């Protein structure tokens, strides 16, 4: 340990090891935290159409339009290791041709520092709610849930679903709007 190079080498190796251990420790302190929160969802309007799917496969599919209200308090999910929360509202349902269908209708990025209490009214879906076929017509069991992905500064990326969910019954015919 008497040359500059060997001292620099030792120092560098030690620094790397310490930083790795510290990062692991930091990750472990927040890895098992419960990131769930209560969510309240309400649907105010539903409309069903049958349109050629212009976003991709060119076949006539059911297209749904949903307007909803979201209310959630996400303050407890934020801590020093959370960079942002990626919130998304997804509709899950089952049809004759597909056992599981999930479509993300709306999303939002919530950075640390922004207001964690959400109270949004009359939100229209951001993305087109196309079904793969005609499974939305008369479907009584389309469930909307709000979920979020916790993006940490360092650590695992958990996906958490909020506790509130709402079931949307779709109308039996096209072009008729139902208000709740």
């Amino acid at each position, binding site marked *: 340990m008497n040359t500059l190079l060997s001292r620099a080498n030792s120092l560098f190796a030690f620094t790397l090891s310490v930083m790795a251990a510290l990062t692991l420790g930091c990750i472990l302190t927040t890895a098992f935290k419960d990131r769930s929160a209560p969510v309240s969802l309400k649907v105010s309007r539903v409309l069903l159409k049958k349109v050629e799917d212009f976003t991709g496969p060119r076949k006539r599919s059911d297209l749904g339009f949903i307007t909803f209200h979201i209310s959630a308090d996400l303050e407890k999910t934020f801590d020093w290791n959370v960079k942002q929360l*990626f919130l998304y509202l997804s509709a899950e349902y089952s049809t004759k041709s597909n056992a599981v269908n999930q479509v993300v209708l709306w999303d939002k990025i919530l950075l640390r520092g922004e207001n964690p209490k959400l109270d949004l009214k009359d939100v229209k879906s951001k993305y087109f709610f196309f079904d793969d076929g005609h499974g939305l017509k008369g479907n009584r069991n389309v469930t909307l849930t709000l979920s979020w992905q916790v993006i940490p500064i360092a650590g695992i990326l958990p996906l958490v679903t909020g506790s509130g969910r709402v079931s949307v019954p779709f109308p039996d015919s096209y072009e008729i709007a139902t208000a709740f």
Partner: protein
Amino acid sequence: MVRAGAVGTHLPTSSLDIFGDLRKMNKRQLYYQVLNFAMIVSSALMIWKGLIVLTGSESPIVVVLSGSMEPAFHRGDLLFLTNFREDPIRAGEIVVFKVEGRDIPIVHRVIKVHEKDNGDIKFLTKGDNNEVDDRGLYKEGQNWLEKKDVVGRARGQDGFSERYYYGKHEIPGEERSSLQEQHLQFKQANPVLKPAGACRSLAVRMDSGSEGL
């Protein structure tokens, strides 16, 4: 104190006199050093291959090369992937997939899933920072991705290259010409990843204009 014949404890005349050291060793010492080196390299290789088996993914650690998943992942972030095929693909998950014909994988979020009774899944992805979904990135005529296109699912990240986690941060004074702005938009819509091998450098530093897809 210097003991004659004890190689390795002999102090070199300058700190950079490596070849002097080598010349003073006899054959056995040389072989020992070579074997030592080979042991280190093969241990690293074993750990890497073991990680591939453990995670089920052919590329368990990847580096993000573009900004299409900002502000979650920035360029230079390391992602850890797993690929357990029994886990179904669900909306909201971040998947790393390869498009046929391109060898650089893409990391984006799943926004639509349609799964049949027999387990056949087709899904659609979109980058958080992109305006449109990824159908423009898939092969000509391809509208959905399937399980076979998935390289892995992002499960964790290291924190080392994240510098600006309080929101968007522009380096003051960095103005972009309109051509650079277009280039940046194109890169944002075409995200890329590079698999980080044990023998390649793990963190890739990018400057804004020089890397291609």
